[in-house]
Each structure stands twice: as C-alpha cells, then as structure tokens.
C-alpha cells in the first residue's frame, strides 16, 4: 500500500484532466468579456445551458449559441455556457446556472421538467427554454405557466411544409426536369425522436408535399437517437433502396447528418434541418430552418431592456422565426414560385398545417 498516496493523487489528476477538457469544450469557465470600456456597464448576466449535442452540433444548440454570442457582444455580459453531457445532469446544470446568473437559457424539449423544477426553486431568476414550455414533472404533457419562464416555441411545421413543397413540386415535375428521381414517387423523413419539435417538422413536410403532389407517398422512420450517425445512415439507406425514396428529410441533428450522407452516396436528394446544411454535401437541395438564434437573442434583448415576458411571441414565418435555407442548383426554377405561394398562404392564415403526422 506504500504507493497509494501517489496513486490516488495521479488518478485524481487524471480525472480532473478529463473533466477540465470537457469543460473546456464548453469553455464554461473562460470569460471573454470583450471591450470592457467603462462607458458601457456590463449587462445582466445570462448562462446558456445546451442539450447533449453541444455548441458545435450544427443544429439547434449551435444556433442557440449563435444568438447568445450576438447578445453577449451587444450587451457586454460575461460568457457562461454549460454543455450538458448527460440527461441526468439537466437539473444540476440548470441549478448551477441559476445560482450564478440573472437569466438561464435552456436548450431543448428534453429539459422541460428539469426547467420547471429549477425555475420554481429560483423564483427571482429569469429562464427561457428553447423548444418547449416548462412542464410539470408529474404530467409532462401539460405546460406549467410560470411567470419567470419564457417558453420559446416555433412553428416547425411551417418550415417542414416549405421543405415538403420543394420535394413535392420536384416529384411532380418528373424525371425530365429532376434527373435523380427513382420513379416510385416516394419521399421520406428520418426523425430523431417522436418529440413535438421533430414531429411538427415531419407533419408539415408530409402535409404540404401531398398538397403539391397528391399521389406522393411519404415514408417516415425514427432513429431514437440524435448522435449516432451510422444509425440514421442505415435508416436512410433503407428508405432509398427499399422504398425508393427520392428525398430524405433529416430531422435528427447529428445522427441525421448520416441520412444526408446516405442520400449523397445513393445519388438521391436530401433536405437539411434547423440550420442551412448545404455545406454538408451536394445532395442537400435545401434546409428547413428554425431561427433559434433569433429567438434566443430576442429574449435576452427583452431581459436587458427590462421587458422580459413569460409569453414571448411564437416564432414562425411572419417574424422570420422559421423558413427555408438556400436552394441548390438541382432545384428547378419552377419550384420557387410554388414556395412563394405557400409562404403567402401560411402568412395569411389560409393554410392550416397539422402538428401531427397523418
């Protein structure tokens, strides 16, 4: 046992290293208050608590971080970001954030009941939650209306609808104009989990694709995962080869990147999600975009101006909260006018898109 002192020291150091590296990934301890000129007083402090994907997930966490950064440089508060590593850490991460700052922005539907618990424990602090309202732990289907929590919600079905319009229109144009169609008039979606934000996207996609091309069939699968790239790749492969899907709409974050890659490898089209994913590969014809960055920025701005509200507007097409990313060159010119027509119909309320898959 003579070694045990040295030994335990080494192990502790080693574990510490691991934890520090993880923390560094989030940079949660590195304050980067820029400027610091005496004329602008530091604003109210805000901590961002991300979901498991982390701030470089090329999806909603990253988008939330973009909005956070914009607010940070605008209102000159100290950077404070906690990247969640495991679902069991939601409560402790949110608590830590609430203790250290004036406002906590949580990212993700999955922390809805943890947010409820922490917001009740810290009634003097402000909270905002991307993708959900806080929910009662006993009944997670019910919103708990707390005066210090702003739920940031989006009409994903509108973005999904426009993606469906693009796919449906391209299907109806046929092989003469859209070269990679397999001829089975089928499109598909790979969802991460059957949670509201994901289902909204897919419901809109399905509904509007059928509006544009009533004969199109829509194949939908779920990976039950937002990280496992190989899994979504397999699901998309299956949709493309077995169901002859021509368009794969990924709604599964990092996992879904595998679906985009499968479309590329099999020579069909794909549609990205949350942010513009055109850079991933050339199979991506467009992306269904949700401006999480705008909503996060807006709610921090409201806080800094003393105008925090627990009932912020729902983010949709009319306030640029959702939309479509850029079109690739594979999209024929005929598509844009149809998209414009649907944008108009959605904005004037004449098109009612369902929130659930039919």
């Amino acid at each position, binding site marked *: 046992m003579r*070694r045990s002192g*040295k*030994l335990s020291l*080494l*192990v502790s150091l*080693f*574990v510490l*290293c*691991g*934890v*520090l*590296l*993880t*923390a*560094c*990934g*989030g940079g949660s301890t590195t304050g980067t208050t820029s400027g610091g000129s005496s004329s602008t007083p530091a604003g109210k402090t805000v901590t961002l608590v991300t979901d*498991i*994907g*982390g*701030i*470089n*997930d*090329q999806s909603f966490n*990253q988008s939330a971080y973009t909005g956070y950064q914009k607010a940070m440089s605008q209102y000159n508060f100290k950077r404070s970001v906690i*990247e969640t*590593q495991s679902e069991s850490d939601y409560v402790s991460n949110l608590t830590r954030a609430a203790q250290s700052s004036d406002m906590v922005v949580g990212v993700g539907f999955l922390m809805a009941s943890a947010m409820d618990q922490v917001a009740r424990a810290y009634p003097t602090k402000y909270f905002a939650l991307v993708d959900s309202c806080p929910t009662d732990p006993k009944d997670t289907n019910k919103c708990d209306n707390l005066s210090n929590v702003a739920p940031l919600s989006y009409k994903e079905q509108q973005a999904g609808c426009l993606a469906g319009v693009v796919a449906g229109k391209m299907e109806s144009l046929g092989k003469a104009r859209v070269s990679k169609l397999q001829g089975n008039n089928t499109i598909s979606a790979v969802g991460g*989990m*059957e949670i509201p934000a994901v289902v909204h996207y897919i419901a809109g996609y399905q509904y509007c694709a059928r509006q544009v091309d009533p004969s199109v069939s829509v194949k939908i*699968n*779920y*990976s*039950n*995962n937002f*990280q*496992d*790239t*190989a*899994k979504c*790749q*397999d*699901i998309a*492969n*299956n949709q493309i*080869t*077995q169901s002859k899907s021509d368009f794969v709409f990924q709604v599964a974050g*990092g*996992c879904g*990147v*595998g679906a*985009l*890659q499968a479309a*590329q*490898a099999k020579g069909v089209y794909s549609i990205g999600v949350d942010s513009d994913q055109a*850079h*991933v*590969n050339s199979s991506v014809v467009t992306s269904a975009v949700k401006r999480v960055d705008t909503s996060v920025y807006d709610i921090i701005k409201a806080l800094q101006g003393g105008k925090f509200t627990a009932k912020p507007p729902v983010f949709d097409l009319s306030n640029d909260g959702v939309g479509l990313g850029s079109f690739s060159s594979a999209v024929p010119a005929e598509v844009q006018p149809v998209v414009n027509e649907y944008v108009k119909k959605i904005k004037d309320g004449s098109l009612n898109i369902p929130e659930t898959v039919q």
Partner: protein
Amino acid sequence: MFLQVLGHVLITSDLWQAALQFAALLLLPALGGVISERSGVVNIAMEGMMLIGAYAGVMVAVATHNILLGVLGAMIAGGLLALVHAIVSINFMANQTVSGIAINIAALGLTNFLLPIQTNGQGITALDSSLRLPQAALGPLAHIPFIGPVLFQQNILFYVVVLIVILLHFLLFRTNIGLRIRAVGEHPQAADTAGVNVRLVRYLCVVSSGLLSGLAGAFLSLGIAGIFNQDMTAGQGYIALAAMIFGKYTPFGAAGACIVFGLGEALSPRLQDTGISANLLSTLPYLLTLVALVGLVGRTMAPAADGVPYEPAAE
C-alpha cells in the same frame, strides 16, 4: 401483422447487410476489449478510443489527402489513448474503471474542443469520396443472390474485421504468445515465475485494444459515415463492452454477440411499419441480449486476474 412484417423483413438482404455492418463496427472495439481483459487489464475506454480514432482519421486524411494515412492516424490516436490507460493502470496501479471513465470523458471533451477550432466553428464538411474507405464488391461472389449483398458487398474494412477475428482467435488459443497473454490474465505470479514479462504483455495488449478501437473509429468516420460528427460513436464502445462479456471474452463469442446486437439495431427501424412505437422498438437490441444471456450464454467468467494490478514481489 407484426409477425408478417417480421417474417418479410427477416428475409431481405438489406436487413442482414446492415446488421453485419453494425456487427463488424462493434466487433473491433469488442476484440480490443477481449485482448486487453485477457491480459488482465479492465478496459472500458473503447468508446473514447473509438471517438478519438474517428476524429483523428478524418483530420489526418484531410490534411494529408491520403486515406491510408488517415486510417493509420486513427489507429495511432486510439493507441496513444490506450497507452495512457496502460501507464495509469499498469505502472501506477490505479483503478482501471476510473481510468477508463476518465479517458471516455476526456476523448469526448477533446474532440468537442478541437473540432470547432479546426473548422472555424463551421462543423466539418463531408469527405471527398477519394478520402473514404470504399464499399468493395468481391467479384463474382457479390452476385450470389442474398448471400452476395450480405457478405460480399460490404465496406472494405468489413473484410479486414473478419480476418482480424480469425487471426485473434488463432493468436489467443493456438500460439505461444496467446498462452502467455492468457497466463498473465489468469495467474500473473505464475507467468512471472515462468519468465513472462507480465507488464510488457499487458502494455502490448492494452495498446492493441487502442489500435483496434481506433480502427473502429476510422471504419465509422472514414468508412460508413464519410464525415465526423460530435459524439458520433454514441455509446457503441459500451455496447462493444457488453458484447465482449456476453461473448465470454473470446473473439468468436464476441462476434456472435455483435451479430445479435447488430441485428437488433438493424431490425428496430425496419419494424416501425408494424405500428409498434419506435421507442419500444429501440429497446430491441437490449431485449435480444437479455434473452440470449439467459437462454444461451449462461454464466460468464472473467479472467481470474482481470482488473487486478500486478506488483512483482519485492526483491
């Protein structure tokens, strides 16, 4: 209805092709685990070594424009991380489970930290097809109905994995080296007395587990996905750990276990048409495991000195 769909799905080559690909991917880290634990070092760090391998593979391949160097880079990265585990658990006799957990957390943190730096926060773009491990159809064999697509139209690394399983079985159970490895894992004092360098054998075995896990990372990022994503291993290193135990610490046993897991993983999305909840279906691989554990495998015995640091008697 369910049985009808199940029956239909089970006879498609598409299912088995996917199942075997998942199995091969899991098998590499599982074999890494087998070799490390056979020598008496508990290794639960395959997840981290796989992730760092996936990352290093892409980065090296992109930087050098050479796919082979990418694969080599992935293996070296996995090996280096394993070397850390070896030093900590063999020389410093630290708790091997704690060291393994630390490595997994460190690998996740390190890749999350490095990725945005190297890509200016943009996230990585898909690899050019010249920088990907290709799918390889094995000549006329690939055209055999059913068997062809399942066994002979796989990624090039699939065939490498098949070779490795056979070689590792041969090495462990038919050669002198294998005998020494097993002796070190079962009874290090006896092996030491017989003139085997216990620490050296353990070092080599742990580093080999890192090389194999790193190769699995390359299989994932350079082969299957063609891109690196944060946390893209998504816990597969842990499943491999289960496969190793489930396979009774033997290469062929682990292979069988990985096929069961792979089948479960490939089946679950394909059965969603039956109307059964996707959430429920995602438990399928684990249910299959439980059934197999209880029904087929029975009691598993770890090597006797597994996880026990070896301290030579003082001279």
